[in-house]
């Protein structure tokens, strides 16, 4: 069974953004452009997260989802601010294959069950963003890493699986965007605790990290953002359409890279996985591109 390498795009309005610890909204370019590149370069799936949907109580990814699903033929998961069955239906109708639920699911766990009954297990991914406490326990956070819940992340993962979720996406807020690597302990704990696939999100800085989270921490899939985005930003001029909205200072400065990550292409990442004996879907010609 091959491991999936998923490109994660944090989106605010028209822009692809990338923060550190889920904070900061530095604009890196046009999400559609990045998504297209990732599809062509061998991404196994795409993950779109609207990072401010919960903050502003609005959902604005529908258009970009519609455009993406018309041109890009790999699975697309969409998350961020999905609060009702209607919200989910809108996003699925726009062309998403799966939805990621976080805030709404922890706030009212029955929502998971309702969504599963309506749309099927395989459509529902429960997304858990966690912070590590000094005593080694992990607490789940909502609203894109802003609000504490008091809920133990591991217990919640188990419950989500029981409620019928098809997959769990687990992100370490402590590691996210820092390039320090995934939280292996957290990922392993969740991956071994639930019978459903677990996607590791947040923290990759080098190839070794991606390999470690699969080999050591038993992740079934890996969601990668900074490592891929800063690589694209470095080599592709066209992705950086510098508009006016958002924090575009980095783009205006000529995109000097981000020292915390060793950026890489999907081909690089998959090569390292294969070298470590982890099967994954090939990129390029073998994939039929």
């Amino acid at each position, binding site marked *: *069974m*091959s*491991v*999936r390498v998923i490109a994660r795009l944090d989106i605010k309005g028209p822009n692809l953004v990338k923060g550190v610890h889920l904070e900061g909204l530095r604009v890196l370019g046009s999400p559609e452009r990045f998504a297209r590149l990732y*599809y062509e370069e061998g991404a*196994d799936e795409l993950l779109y997260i609207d990072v401010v949907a919960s903050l502003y109580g609005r959902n604005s990814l529908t258009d970009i989802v519609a455009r993406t699903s018309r041109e890009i*033929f*790999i*699975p697309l998961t969409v998350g961020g601010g999905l609060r009702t069955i209607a919200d989910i*239906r809108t996003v*699925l*109708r726009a*062309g998403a*294959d799966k939805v990621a639920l976080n805030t709404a699911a922890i706030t009212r766990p029955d929502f998971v069950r309702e969504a599963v*009954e*309506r*749309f*099927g*297990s*395989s*459509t529902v991914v429960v997304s858990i963003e966690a912070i590590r406490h000094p005593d080694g326990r992990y607490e789940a956070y909502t609203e894109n890493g802003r609000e504490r819940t008091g809920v133990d992340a591991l217990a919640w993962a188990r419950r989500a699986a029981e409620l019928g979720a*098809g*997959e769990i996406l687990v992100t370490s807020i402590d590691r996210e965007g820092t390039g320090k690597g995934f939280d292996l302990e957290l990922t392993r704990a969740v991956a071994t605790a639930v*019978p*459903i*696939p*677990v996607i590791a999100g947040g923290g990759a800085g080098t190839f070794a990290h991606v390999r470690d989270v699969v080999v050591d921490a038993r992740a*079934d*899939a890996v969601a990668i953002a900074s490592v891929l985005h800063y690589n694209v930003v470095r080599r592709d001029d066209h992705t950086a359409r510098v508009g006016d909205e958002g924090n575009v200072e980095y783009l205006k400065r000529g995109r000097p890279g981000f020292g915390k990550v060793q950026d890489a292409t999907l081909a690089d990442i998959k090569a390292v996985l294969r070298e470590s004996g982890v099967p*994954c*879907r*090939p990129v390029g010609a073998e*994939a*039929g*591109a």
Partner: protein
Amino acid sequence: MRAVITADPGDLDAADAVILPGIGAFRDAIHTLDARALTPAIHAAVATGKPVLGICLGMQLLLTESHEMGRYRGLDLVAGEVTRLSEDAGDGTRVKVPHVGWSRISPAGGGAFKEPLFDGVPADAFMYFVHSYECRPSSPGVATATTRYGAAVYCSALRRDSVVGVQFHPERSGPHGLTIYRNFRTSIVTSREWSHGRTAGSEIRTA
């Protein structure tokens, strides 16, 4: 290829081919097909030799019976049963169910694909799967592709006359998946309207 998403039996009668997509639960799907009189319409389509393509749950619906959350009768266009995927990885460990991700499809019987639907698709190409149940057709010649998951090797594509089924999602399987759709179009003889459904099984259940 003009496609129409429909829950209207009349559209099936008018169409040149039928695609049965599927995400969701077997029980709900079959009840909805029955409730909307789509079951006889599908049988009628098959009887006239129209191509029918079942995808994922849609493929499972083609079979006689499913064991998902109980025992439910399917469309019985292909003799066989739908049972839950095994979690046995073969080495004492367990694999995750649902099976989510890219796996290889191999021609049943080895060699290259003889199935016209897979014309141009290399043997052992990767396709995107997301399912918890597998199809077990009773007749041995029906399976056209197999896939390994854990310790098991199961039927990932089948054909009986003009009825074909794929357990994976060609619309989400990149360029090879698109090739399958192109082949399906080629297999359609007449030039009248099509029925085409691409998204979740909701359009079957809810119209």
